[in-house]
């Protein structure tokens, strides 16, 4: 346990801590797996989340890592042929088969006798919860030695902000316009893949957020320390798709956690084993108001009914995962 330091443990680095207690991102010599010059928008949460996760995995595996990337923003903005921002062995699959390709890469490493080389598959929520869902479920049930990371920005951003099965209720997308009697995405739709992953009883499932770096790094490192199928679902705000200010990316991710809308937890073999408590609980309006995709909730008069339903979702998460301790 770290004693009181000037900044607590909440900043990226801390000069008062011993080197080995600092975050990977504080290191002057971090891998920078996803390097400068990528074409992600200003303030991209996914670019940040991917660097956080892969840099941590590189440390955990001693740089013996191959990443398989589904089609999506992350692939498009990082690797327009022939340039790439990736500074690790990296392969692009189709939109829907990253989990299956990763299974193959892992099998190939095993066949070559490279037992120390580890494999990560990664994609956005579209490539994970919709298009790649069959391959993902197969990878889970076969317990292939792959960590699958989903960077969840809650819609198909690369193609112009279409709804995915990870789009939250009431959010406006190109395919769920804010018009009519139930504006935005419809309540009662969508799926929560972390729970589905747990239903496969795989060894490790976790959620993480770009706003909570140390928590994220700890989970990735833990996942790379074990074998079998593993899944981490990372919350990554999208300024373009959500209609938020580019400088608010971390703040919005933080509010998603602090409202209870995005619970941070870990599960092993199908059971929730730990959750990250909320430090200062805030009402969901604080989170919603910063995003134009929810602007229709705050008209004159405000849509108090839908806001209350979103608040109920947050409160349910708080109960379910014990987020207030």
């Amino acid at each position, binding site marked *: 346990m770290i004693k009181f330091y000037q900044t607590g443990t909440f*900043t990226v680095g801390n*000069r008062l801590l011993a080197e080995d207690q600092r975050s990977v991102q504080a290191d002057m010599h971090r891998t920078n797996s996803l*390097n400068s010059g990528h074409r992600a928008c200003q*303030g991209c949460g996914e670019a940040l989340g991917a660097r956080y996760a892969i840099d941590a995995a590189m440390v955990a595996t001693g740089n013996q890592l191959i990443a398989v990337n589904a089609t999506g923003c992350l692939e498009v903005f990082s690797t327009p042929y022939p340039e790439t921002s990736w500074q690790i062995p990296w392969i692009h699959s189709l939109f829907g088969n990253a989990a299956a390709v990763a299974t193959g890469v892992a099998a190939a490493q095993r066949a070559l006798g490279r037992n120390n080389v580890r494999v990560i598959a990664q994609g956005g929520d579209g490539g994970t919860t919709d298009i790649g869902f069959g391959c993902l479920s197969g990878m889970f049930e076969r317990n292939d030695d792959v960590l699958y990371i989903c960077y969840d920005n809650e819609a198909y951003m690369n193609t112009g902000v279409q709804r995915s099965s990870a789009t939250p209720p009431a959010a406006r997308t190109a395919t769920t316009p804010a018009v009519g009697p139930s504006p935005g995405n419809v309540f009662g739709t969508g799926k929560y893949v972390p729970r589905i992953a747990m239903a496969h009883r795989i060894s490790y499932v976790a959620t993480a957020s770009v706003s909570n*770096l140390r928590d994220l790094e700890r989970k990735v490192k833990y996942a790379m320390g074990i074998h079998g199928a593993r899944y981490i679902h990372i919350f990554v705000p999208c300024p373009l798709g959500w209609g938020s200010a580019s400088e608010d990316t971390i703040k919005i991710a933080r509010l998603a956690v602090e409202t209870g809308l995005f619970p941070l937890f870990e599960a092993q073999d199908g059971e929730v084993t730990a959750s990250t408590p909320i430090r200062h609980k805030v009402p969901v309006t604080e989170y919603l108001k910063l995003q134009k995709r929810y602007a229709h909730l705050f008209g004159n008069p405000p849509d108090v009914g839908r806001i209350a339903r979103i608040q109920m979702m947050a409160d349910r998460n708080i109960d379910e995962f014990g987020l207030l301790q």
Partner: protein
Amino acid sequence: MDKPYAITLDVGSSLANKTGAWRTKRPVYLDRLPPCNNACPAGENIQGWLYHAESGDYEAAWRALTEDNPLPAIMGRVCYHPCESSCNRGKVDEPVGINSVERFLGDEALKRGWKFYPPKTESGKRVLIVGAGPSGLSAAYHLRRFGHSVKIVEAGPLAGGMMRFGIPKYRLPRDVLDGEVQRILDLGVELELNCKVSNILDTMKAGHFDAAFLAVGAHIAKRAYIPAGEAAHMLDAVSVLRSMEGEEKPMLGRRVVVYGGGNTAPDVARTAKRLGAIEAIIVYRRTREKMPAHDFEIEEALQEGVLIKWLSTIKNMANEGTLTVETMALDATGFPQPTGEFETLEADSLVLALGQDVDLSLLDGVPALDIKDGAVQVGRNMMTGHAGIFAGGDMVPSERTVTVGVGHGKKAARHIDAWLSGNTYAPAPKHELATFDMLNLWYFSDAPKTMRPLLELARRTSTFEEVVGGLTEDNALFEARRCLSCGNCFECDNCYGMCPDNAVIKLEPGKRFEFNFDYCKGCGICVSECPCGAIKMVPETN
């Protein structure tokens, strides 16, 4: 062609893609002025020395502190710490205990025997300082460090001025005072005691001084006309507190009344208690809100059993020690007006604590001086109307505190130094203020202030032991680490870690960061996630 099937181009890095061209605004690192530094009358770089204290490097902290103020152990006891009143942390939980950390550093320096570094070169100039109080000592220290030869001439028998003859021992133990004075003298400052300067121009001429700094203080007690019987025992606060330093303690009796509402009044009343008075009563003509004495002094006095009669004036004192007191009422403008209601108080002695005047006799015959309301007027450079004669401390118009005096000494020293070489000293422009709204408090954990231990009441009212204790190393470190580092980078790595474009370059420890504008897209995450407001966005000009 040895490329694989269907591959026609070499693999390239995205570094070829200079995304900095997208930017319309750019982040800029800056140092803002923390409110504590802004409020410090001695101009200390408080945030700067706390930074060193946080890492446990107390000597570096003490050296950074003493760049501006050579008396930290004294400051940590007698300063009214306006820094803490303005501390941004006060809006979160409680202000950082700057004063107690300062005292810890000062005590640590005395304990470990840390010394000031002597000047590297000698200027050959001679400066005379009149008065060995806080202002004179501060000026001596800074002038000596500039390489000038400095002589202090002091009228009293010991150095310290009002720190010795005005502030009681239970607030400032004399070994602490002596230790910090001696360290200044050890720099090679000459001190002559028991020598009253009667004519400054003669003394300067006789000693071949190139400039003089006057800081004689305000030692003459103000009197009020109170009709009294011949045998009535009436004294003034200045002489009571001064005689506490001598062999003969003042005879105050069992019932003591102190008249006045400044900081001296509780000092005298508390001293009377310690000398054995059963009753010590402060009589003040206005209300507690209007009282100039600081709250904590009143609070500590009340805890020790001192009584205070508000809204009262003393009309006369009869021979047998009976005081006639008239009740006052505040008028619409807040000024006390008599009500015609009288009562009597029994007192063995009455001590007047009605303020002090300056003895300006040493300036007789000096041309071109401007003296108003008993104080010497000085310019922005602390120089009097007479070229080469500077003045500071209680003898110039200002708030009369030790810290203000120390600040005057430093400021005057800088101007004297420039004046001696025919230049003028231009202070660096102040940075913009780091206000509360510039901080990102998420990154700071909750941590309430560490209180200094108070001496038990029984011991407080019977002895002159120091009332307020010091912090231990553990809690001084904790206290220092409560600093939010307002407006100044403390290398938390947030900008470096949270840039989605790797456009922040981390330099070696202590050298902070740089932006790589080839790739910075100007998203502004670094600015909004900087805990201390040390980055700002500015528009791109082209």
